[in-house]
């Protein structure tokens, strides 16, 4: 018999007999309805407590803010998506302004430019599928247009979040977006920059992923 069948058979024929499944009451995870402003405050507090940076901005002003942020870090290159409106807007913007870094588009399989991705990209910008106020988390569903490594490999990850897409809890977000109906190949909650406390519980950022996580909140 295969190991699969042996294992399943042992589990099915357990000597203790059939087990009864208890009810699960998820109400303890629910929170009262918060206004968008309350959610944003909460989100900001929580993500900043784990070293994330939040900039409140607007549809009209976010590129200016982004340029400032990147300049202050001396970023030379910024990785963008090809199709997403964020990438497009940036591409248009560079045509008549000098203060943005060189834009790189992630439109080829990583194998063809892995070395460059790992060593030459200073920052990456992605969209989000919303945020979670309670835990200060960003929801990302990487896609063909915004591949997984955009938010992981560059030392600075900039995420654009619409304040109107903030949820109170993970539980609420998952239900509202009906995740159970189908998951992408990869989905992420990101709550701050990469960090470790493996050396004597001392926090250090950017151990493997981004050292900085910057959230541009569009109000």
């Amino acid at each position: 018999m295969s190991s699969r069948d042996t294992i399943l058979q042992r589990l099915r024929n357990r000597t203790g007999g059939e087990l009864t499944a208890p009810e699960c009451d998820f109400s303890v995870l629910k929170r009262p309805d918060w206004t968008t402003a309350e959610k944003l405050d909460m989100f900001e507090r929580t993500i900043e407590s784990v070293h994330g940076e939040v900039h409140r901005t607007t549809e009209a002003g976010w590129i200016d803010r982004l340029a400032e942020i990147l300049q202050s870090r001396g970023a030379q290159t910024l990785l963008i998506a090809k199709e997403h409106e964020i990438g497009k807007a940036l591409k248009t913007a560079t045509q008549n302004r000098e203060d943005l870094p060189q834009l790189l588009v992630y439109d080829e399989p990583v194998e063809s430019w892995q070395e460059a991705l790992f060593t030459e990209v200073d920052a990456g910008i992605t969209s989000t599928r919303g945020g979670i106020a309670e835990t200060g988390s960003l929801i990302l569903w990487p896609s063909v247009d915004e591949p997984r490594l955009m938010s992981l490999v560059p030392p600075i990850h900039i995420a654009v979040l619409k304040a109107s897409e903030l949820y109170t809890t993970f539980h609420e977000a998952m239900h509202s977006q009906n995740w159970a109906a189908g998951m992408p190949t990869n989905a992420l909650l990101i709550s701050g920059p990469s960090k470790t406390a493996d050396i004597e519980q001392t926090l250090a950022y950017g151990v493997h992923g981004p050292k900085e996580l910057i959230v541009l909140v569009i109000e």
Partner: protein
Amino acid sequence: MSETAQPTPPQSAHHIDVKEFHPRARAAIHNPQIRQNFRKAMDGLMTKRKSAFEGWDLEALRDLGANIRLRALANLPDLLEQLEQKLTENGIKVHWASDGDEACEIVRDICIARDAKTVIKGKSMVSEEMELNHYLGEHGIEALESDLGEYIVQLADETPSHIIMPAIHKNTSEISQLLHDKTGTDLSNDVEYLTANARLQLREKFMNADVGVSGVNFAVAETGTLCLVENEGNGRMTTTVPPCHIAVTGIEKVVPNLEDVTGLLALLTRSATGQHITTYFNMISGPRKADEMDGPEEVHVVLVDNGRSTIYQDDELLDTLRCIRCGACMNHCPVYTRVGGHAYGTTYPGPIGAILMPHMVGLDEGRHLPTASSLCGACGEVCPVKIPIPDLLVRLRQESVDGDKLHPAKVSGHGAKRGAMEALIWKGWSWMHARPGLYRMGTSLGARFRKLQPGKLGGWTQYRTAPKLAAKTLHERMKERSQ
């Protein structure tokens, strides 16, 4: 990366005699550095956990956690089949392993089929259970740990001393010295500097690795999703950068619904490190699609039994399988805090190890594990899924001495601890205490002749004075009073 950076294969747990708990514990207790490292770390973790749950109805949340796990276990075989089906639909290959060796072979065969020479690993306690690194090393495949703590432990040729923070037994200067000796990093107590250096060395490895091996925190049956909880990003790297990802997981990790994950995640990170959430919660539901730019082209899951289906047979022992590996029981264990993780000599140390490992190594090998507890109950009090750890410790103590004729022992290696002398003492004790007249006579005589009480009582008086028998027992005083 310099030549010296090549780690030697990790010390195999095979070389550790689990039975030798006492000498290891003694050595740790008399090592002030170990004592201090653990005390400091555990104090910090306990404080953080407490504040992370502020404002929560913790009892209700733990009830939810327990019920989610119990519900999953109640339908375990069906859920595993559903999980297998969903994963397969998603393009993930599913393998089943009865024990650690079979799981190792599966990983090795996948590597061979891909002509893989180097494996990069994310944190996985199941792979420690399997002693995967050692096995792959023997088959000419280099396995490198990428979680910073695991990396440190591997460089030191040690095993993890904690399931969440593998290098918790070392302080900064010890780690600095180690990194200096093994990788040429300059000596420094600047943690940022040490971390940045490790980043550089490991990025190189990520780019060149042929296979990534990770663990799994929760496997969701309804969507065929593997969930990984981590802070560093090495888990994401491991599961994204190499062309092949192999996830190894115990069969008990499956839960029916995505919703279940929200409850368990809320408990896991707060219990483990006092974080509201970890930096990354990574949900993987398939390999790279044809038009995607990155991600592994192959994803495998190895479902490992390794004793779990045996634990599953018994209604009481079954609770062991609720565990979500948060480590809170060890963080709060006064024994673990004193002796550290290595004293146990097992993959999982502390209270969870004491109730789990006897099923993996046998209760004969692991006979001391359930005794390494004062039954203070701190572990059960903090366990996010309400495992009655102290009760399970008592159950295993009973099994290790075959102490209950009504409920014959079941765990392999049971009875190994039953010594003729000790059994006789308890028999005598029982005989006397079940006979009130005799008991009264004995205790009165004791009181009368208390001057003859021995001043030395084995291990007790090594540290304390002997308890002093009273001149008159309470029985005698109450009797006099009533007359």
